[in-house]
């Protein structure tokens, strides 16, 4: 039986205004949510949810075979319709992130396939997808040289920086930036931006995101230990 | 139809040329580094780029290979901004496919294909701006690209178009003359052996008028040949003189 809770619009707005700017939304994960895959994760960041699955190392199509390393394949499935060029761009970004993290030389002539299904996009979708994929790789026990954590920030018109923006913040804001950090030195693996911003705003966003990334890494550790102890 | 006279009473065409006059031809060989041979050619306002890759291993399906001769693969495409109205597809439409087939046949006749069995040669032609005579410019550009790539051929292949307006044969027709109701003859010839490799005619022309037009087009082809050949030779002489200096010094 599904039940609905009626929320007044004013209440919702009030709630959103109260929400602090400098915290991440609540992270929840379900490791091994599917059974036929080598690794699977459903990750929620607030209301944004995505599902990641990993197959591999497995056989590779001859045409894509690389003799000295594994081929990383990444497929992004949008919630509705066929993948569009914007989704292709997302695929390419994530593919090159995981090509850098996975130690591909360990599995020459094989493929590691990551499939991402967008289930609910309510802000910071790219960050959520990257985090889900990283957790799925951990679940599948694929060797990585470092973990990655993605954190998005948005820049409001007045230059105020908001961490982990909701859809509303993203649309209202002047710019949004997604940072991806590595777990070793917290260096920047990837940056994807949209909209105009100044160098000062960039720097403020970077500091904020870097601090938050440690919480994401801690969350990865907690999720894994919960799974292993169980 | 006043104002749309393709040939004025004084004997001049809409763009001020005489009936037997060609449009200005400018070209440059070896414009690109990636390709094995390339050429850029302008005939009036028609601008064409040709690139040649190969001979190289057969791509995609070994089944296509010919055991006794070279496989020639052509692709003709027009940039979407090359025509007055935007083209929806740069290639793959019927007209481009027909053009591709024609180019392939033309070059099969002139390249010494038996020298390269079981391999492939790619000829890519891109029309950047179109003002009539696309086939002719494509053939001429591709010939230059093949020369640049050093592919052995029997002779140059030179193409030229012609029409018959107000009882006068005209040569190298532009877009306006092409789209008028008159007949259009396109010929590709081997200028030195005076052989016709390709001939196409659209719409109606009286039998008696055919040979004057063909003669005129043939002369046009030879004129183009002289222009191309002159510059190709000059460049080659300059190049070899330079090489000699490098070798000796």
């Amino acid at each position, binding site marked *: 039986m599904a039940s609905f809770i009626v929320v007044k619009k004013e209440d919702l707005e009030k709630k959103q205004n109260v929400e602090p700017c400098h915290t991440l939304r609540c992270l929840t994960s379900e490791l091994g949510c599917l059974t036929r895959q080598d690794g699977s994760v459903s990750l929620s960041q607030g209301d944004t949810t995505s599902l990641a699955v990993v197959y591999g190392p497995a056989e590779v199509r001859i045409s894509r075979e690389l003799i000295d390393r594994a081929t990383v394949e990444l497929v992004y499935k949008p919630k509705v319709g066929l993948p569009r060029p914007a989704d292709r761009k997302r695929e390419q*970004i994530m593919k090159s992130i995981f090509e850098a993290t996975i130690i591909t030389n360990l599995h020459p002539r094989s493929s590691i396939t990551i499939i991402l299904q967008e289930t609910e996009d309510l802000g910071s979708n790219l960050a959520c997808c990257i985090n889900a994929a990283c957790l799925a790789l951990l679940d599948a026990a694929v060797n990585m040289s470092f973990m990655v954590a993605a954190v998005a920030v948005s820049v409001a018109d007045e230059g105020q920086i908001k961490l982990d923006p909701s859809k509303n913040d993203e649309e209202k804001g002047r710019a949004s930036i997604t940072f991806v950090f590595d777990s070793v030195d917290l*260096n920047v693996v990837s940056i994807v931006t*949209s909209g*105009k*911003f100044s160098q000062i705003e960039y720097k403020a966003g970077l500091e904020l995101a870097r601090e938050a990334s440690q919480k994401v890494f801690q969350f990865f550790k907690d999720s894994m230990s919960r799974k292993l102890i169980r | 139809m006043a104002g749309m006279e393709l040939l004025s009473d004084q004997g001049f065409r809409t763009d001020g040329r005489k009936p037997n006059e060609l449009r200005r031809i400018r070209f440059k060989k070896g414009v690109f580094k990636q390709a094995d041979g390339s050429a850029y050619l302008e005939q009036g306002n028609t601008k064409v780029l040709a690139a040649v890759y190969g001979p190289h291993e057969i791509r995609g399906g070994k089944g296509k290979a010919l055991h006794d001769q070279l496989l020639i693969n052509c692709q003709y495409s027009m940039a979407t901004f090359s025509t007055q109205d935007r083209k929806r597809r740069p290639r793959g439409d019927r007209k481009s496919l027909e053009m591709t087939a024609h180019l392939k046949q033309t070059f099969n006749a002139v390249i010494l294909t038996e020298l390269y069995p079981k391999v492939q040669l790619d000829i890519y032609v891109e029309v950047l701006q179109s003002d009539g005579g696309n086939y002719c410019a494509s053939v001429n550009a591709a010939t230059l690209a093949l020369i640049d790539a050093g592919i052995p051929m029997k002779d140059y292949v030179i193409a030229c178009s012609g029409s018959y307006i107000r009882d006068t044969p005209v040569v190298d027709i532009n877009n306006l003359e092409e789209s008028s109701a008159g007949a259009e003859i396109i010929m590709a010839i081997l200028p030195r052996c005076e052989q016709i490799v390709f001939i196409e005619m659209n719409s109606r022309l009286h039998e008696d008028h055919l040979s004057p037009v063909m003669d005129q087009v043939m002369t046009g082809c030879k004129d183009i040949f002289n222009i191309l050949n002159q510059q190709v030779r000059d460049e080659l002489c300059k190049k070899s003189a330079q090489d000699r200096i490098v070798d000796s010094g």
Partner: protein
Amino acid sequence: MADQYRIAQPKDYYRQFLEKDVRPDNRGLGEYRATVMNIGCVSTAEGSSLVKIGNTTVMCGIKAEVAEPGVDGKNGYLVPNVELSPLCSANFRPGPPGELAQVLSQNMADLIADSQCVKLENLCVCPGKLVWVLHIDLVCLDYDGNLMDACTLAMMSALKSTSLPVVTVDEESGEIKTDPSSRTLLPVSCCPVSTTLIVFDNKLLLVDPTSEEESLATGAVTVVTEGKNVCSIYKPGGTPLTDKQIRDCIERGFIRGKEARSLIEETLCSVDR
């Protein structure tokens, strides 16, 4: 001998040059290849340009069409499309656009949206009835790396030279009239310029990579600047970079931005004359 070494051990070959802070083509690490620009080279297009960065050649043609607007009734459309045909490099196959072409097209669309260089409201002919659709077709003629920068430069210079015919819609009959004799210049509010750097051996940053350098790279960063603002930083994965390295990239982006903008202005001036 050097050529064989270059083919067999490309990384070692490069390392020996880079130790001495120079690249095999005689450039410094932060040096751009010579950039050549030609504006208005295709007379059948509403706006056009040809850009050469070293050997990389991109031609941009802009064709305008009128269409019915979407639900909001006043926004026109800008449709960038990058074409990488087998003509430009032996690495591309005939057939539908590959991943690189699709991603580049998307990057171009994002660039216009992020910088707001062409306001979609300005493409309105008659509110609720007729708007302009600008098809921006970018054809790569020779591929030798750094397509992103060449494409942005070609697109921006072509947009700046685009002029549209004056179109009027008859109120009563709904008839569309075009006046080919008078044309208006497309308003372009700003001029974003992109700068691409690659990471070599996880540490060195090389500006304006050739296709050979791109194939050896362990990561890439593209910085798009516009005036004093950053329009986009695009680093799709690859080697992690320190803050200082990224700051250097942004600095380099601003310098290149200034150079490229003055080049566009100069070329536009010489064309007008």
